[in-house]
């Protein structure tokens, strides 16, 4: 094998390489626009817009081809060299080096943006814009749905007459029938009778305690016997708009959490273990003589019992979060709840 030497052919090519460079031309851009119009037209209006696009593409394609083949057809090429604007030497400019005075290099302003620097900036800038355009919707899609449209669920627990005065029931119900079994929740319910406010309006009073532990959200259980044998009240299963509702009678001496041993009294006050506050409660309304559960709220503590209880109410907070005392300052902003 001979060591490689430039063959006459390649030498010839390299010598004339410059002349093979086509002059800068705008025709391909017009051609590309024509193609885009054709494609858009295929979606919008194949007859009219696509025809217009085709005409544009053909015209510019023809001009482009004519330009590109000019040399082959023997027409002289006129290639304008790229020029930069000449400026008078002055402040912010560097004079040409002394030994190159004869070459008459134009003075380059120090602040001038060179071609490569411009392209670098344009690449980074456009890349950033494109990256942003992609990232923003994707990040929004990933993050926002967790916080938007948290709709309130109302749970129908049946007629008020189901709940005898001052008797506790463990109610198990489906909050969101669409979600199915995974949205089964439990609450401890006691009918406190009617309460009359200072204006003399009588309204029914219920104590409805969520069984979500205020420590880390495990299900607390009632400490006490259940069923008719011990409580004297039958357990009931009803079917309402929200599906099956189970009511099990119970005599709670308090509530205990199986996970980490949190203990509560029958009003939901923490009496032992790691919970940071009392058990949450459900707001409720009475609609057509039926008990309707609304959303939950958090409770720091409860003083007194039943209808006379003074409840220290707070906005719903997650388990383990303090709602009162200095520790509440750790949670200044809560995500949107229903």
């Amino acid at each position: 094998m001979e060591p490689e030497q430039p063959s006459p052919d390649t030498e010839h090519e390299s010598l004339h390489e410059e002349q093979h460079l086509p002059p800068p031309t705008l025709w391909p851009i017009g051609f590309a626009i024509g193609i885009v119009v054709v494609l858009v037209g295929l979606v919008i209006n194949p007859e009219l817009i696509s025809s217009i696009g085709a005409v544009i593409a053909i015209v510019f394609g023809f001009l482009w081809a004519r330009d590109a083949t000019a040399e082959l057809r023997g027409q002289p090429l006129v290639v304008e060299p790229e020029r930069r604007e000449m400026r008078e030497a002055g402040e912010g400019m560097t004079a040409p080096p002394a030994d190159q005075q004869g070459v008459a290099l134009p003075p380059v302003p120090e602040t001038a943006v060179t071609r490569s620097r411009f392209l670098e900036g344009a690449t980074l800038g456009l890349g950033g814009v494109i990256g942003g355009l992609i990232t923003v919707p994707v990040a929004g899609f990933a993050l926002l749905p967790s916080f938007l449209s948290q709709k309130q669920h109302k749970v129908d627990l049946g007629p008020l007459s189901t709940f005898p005065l001052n008797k506790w029931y463990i109610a198990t119900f489906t909050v969101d029938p669409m979600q199915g079994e995974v949205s089964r929740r439990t609450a401890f319910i006691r009918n406190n009778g009617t309460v009359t406010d200072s204006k003399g309006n009588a309204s029914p009073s219920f104590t409805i305690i969520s069984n979500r532990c205020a420590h880390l959200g495990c299900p607390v259980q009632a400490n006490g016997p259940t069923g008719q044998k011990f409580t004297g009240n039958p357990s009931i299963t009803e079917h309402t708009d929200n599906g099956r509702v189970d009511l099990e009678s119970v005599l709670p001496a308090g509530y205990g959490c199986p996970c980490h041993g949190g203990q509560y009294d029958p009003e939901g006050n923490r009496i032992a273990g790691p919970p940071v506050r009392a058990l949450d409660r459900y707001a409720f309304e009475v609609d057509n003589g039926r008990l309707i559960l609304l959303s939950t709220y958090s409770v720091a503590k409860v003083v007194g019992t039943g209808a006379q209880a003074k409840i220290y109410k707070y906005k719903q907070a997650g388990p383990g979060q303090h709602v009162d005392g200095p520790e509440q300052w750790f949670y200044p902003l809560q995500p949107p709840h229903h």
Partner: protein
Amino acid sequence: MAVRRKPTKAELRRQRMEELVNFPLDWLEERSGLIGGVRYFLFRNVPADVNWMQTLGSAALTAFLVQAITGVILAMYYVPSAATDPATGKPVAWESIVNISDGVFMGWLVRGMHRWGASVFIILMFLHMGRVFLFGAYKYPRELNWIIGVLILVMGMMEGFTGYLLPWDQTAYWATVVGINLNGTAPFLGPWLAQFLRGGQEIGGETLTRFYSLHMLVIPGAIMALIGLHLYLVIRLGVTSPPWSKDAAGMEPEQEEEPRLRPGLTRPVPRPAGASALQAEPGGRE
């Protein structure tokens, strides 16, 4: 020119076999440099007194690869749906796990490897971490690799947390309730983080699909990238001697005659076996 013995048939056959094996390797090397890179990775120098303890990192890597492969297979059969199967009244995700364990051929084995391998991975990472700590291998210039290793450990634990929910049974559900609420008690952003992880206010179908995506796409991708960086730094910085080594840490052996250049510059590209034979015969061919 020296008279050469004619090669025997056996020699010719051997030569042909070598060419057959070498050709694809040379083809690849010439175009990518991959063969040289792999050789550099596998045959690099390590201290003479390395220790079995120093295989713990490779063991952890192997455990991760087992998790990746068994995970891919499990993903072929697992259905991340919290919906209730109307035929049985059971959640679809839980049923698909039962199917993997009881129905799919050898499914119990693959699931068992994934389930127990998860613990093996974490344990090996901790042992590896302990080895690095006790050997002082986290010191200059390897601090960054310690940090990357810690990130891999955290990612591995996140894998454990997200993977635990997927069987969608009572253990999975309540462990995730507690885990997310633990995150929720972090100051300031905790409640927001918890709600993001749940995909809403309550754990439900969205939590399951979200955890599945994190478990099999996001976190493994991050772990792979971090392992790549980790190995790059191991190769670049070299393996540390044990603390009882007589060689001072970080010292090169006696300077070789040729100065050591950066890898890739000194190593000759392996030439095809046939080419060297041809070059040895000047005038053999034009």
